């Protein structure tokens, strides 16, 4: 089954445009990043590798602590490691600027 996780973080900084990075391949993930009118970052993670909610929380919390951007973020995951997820987050942010 697909595990769906949701996270929200307070945020205020804006991004210029939406961005899409990555691919749903083994060990990888796809990210859809869009500006949000709210003052928060809201994240949906859909993953075929369940049981890693705390790890996802840790990775995302770190990223949004570093970049407090108001966005809607969707992640489609196929077993990406935190290193790959962190990479995709930075790549998406770069494209959104």
């Amino acid at each position, binding site marked *: *089954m*697909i595990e769906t996780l949701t996270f929200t973080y307070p945020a205020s900084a804006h991004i210029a445009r*939406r961005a*899409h990075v990555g*691919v*749903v*391949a083994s060990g*990888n993930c*796809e990210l*859809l990043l*869009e500006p949000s009118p709210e003052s928060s970052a809201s994240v949906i993670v*859909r*993953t*075929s590798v369940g049981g890693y909610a705390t790890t996802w929380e840790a990775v995302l919390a770190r990223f949004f602590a570093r970049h407090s951007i108001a966005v809607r973020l*969707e992640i*489609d*995951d*196929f077993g990406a490691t935190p290193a790959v997820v962190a990479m995709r987050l930075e790549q998406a942010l770069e494209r959104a600027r």
Partner: protein
Amino acid sequence: MTPHIGDSYAERNARERAQALLDPGSFREVLGPFARLRSPYLAAQGVTSQSDDGVVVARGTLGGVRACVVATDGRFLGGAIGEIGGAKIAASLELARRDAERGTPTRVVLAFDSGGIRLQEANLGLLAIAEICDAVVALRAHQPVVAVIAGRVGVYGGMSIVTALCNEVIVTEGARIGLNGPDVVETEAGADEFDASNRPLVWRVTGGRRRFAQGHATALVADDMPDIRAAVEDAFARNRPFVAIERPDFPDPGLEREAFLRAYGVTP
């Protein structure tokens, strides 16, 4: 001294391939990731869906002429075709045929990297392939349908049949066109008959050079974007009608061997 390493098509993802095939700056994706046209069937089977279902449809121009590139993403489930992705491909072909009937033709390039039908969607994938084949044949009546098979997956199963229906098939030496995958052939026929782990053998039998020698591919080019773009341009310029290969054009096995060796740059 840096050798000439081509601007590789194979290295690009589907979106980048479509972008690189179309005239610079003309790329506009249709129903892209943010349309979120995901497969409705994968989640229930514990498989993560992709927001574009592994198919990119892009409008633009090719040599200044209205064009549409349909590219499959070989990295998502091996590029296998499901209901949504299949519908994107079929609809693009059908719309191009409508454009042709109205006198405003849209060139179509099929940039395929696909293992065939997505097993998780089985009959819907089969249906999609049938619709795509139908649409290729219908569009072919008006203009050449051009396939570029130059990725790391190649085309197998139903997608190889679609490819065989195209007027023009552009390949690189790294391409593969086959019906059953090498492992399946080995399982069915035995390793003595076909050793799937013998990779040079797999390419000798189903690779770009072989397919070009046999006439299943109409152009063999280097994995270099300028060469591939030029081949696409030539394909449309030639405007050749479809020629079916009823049987290999080599009634004499010796002649086939000659053509095969020549394709490998060996003087027979």
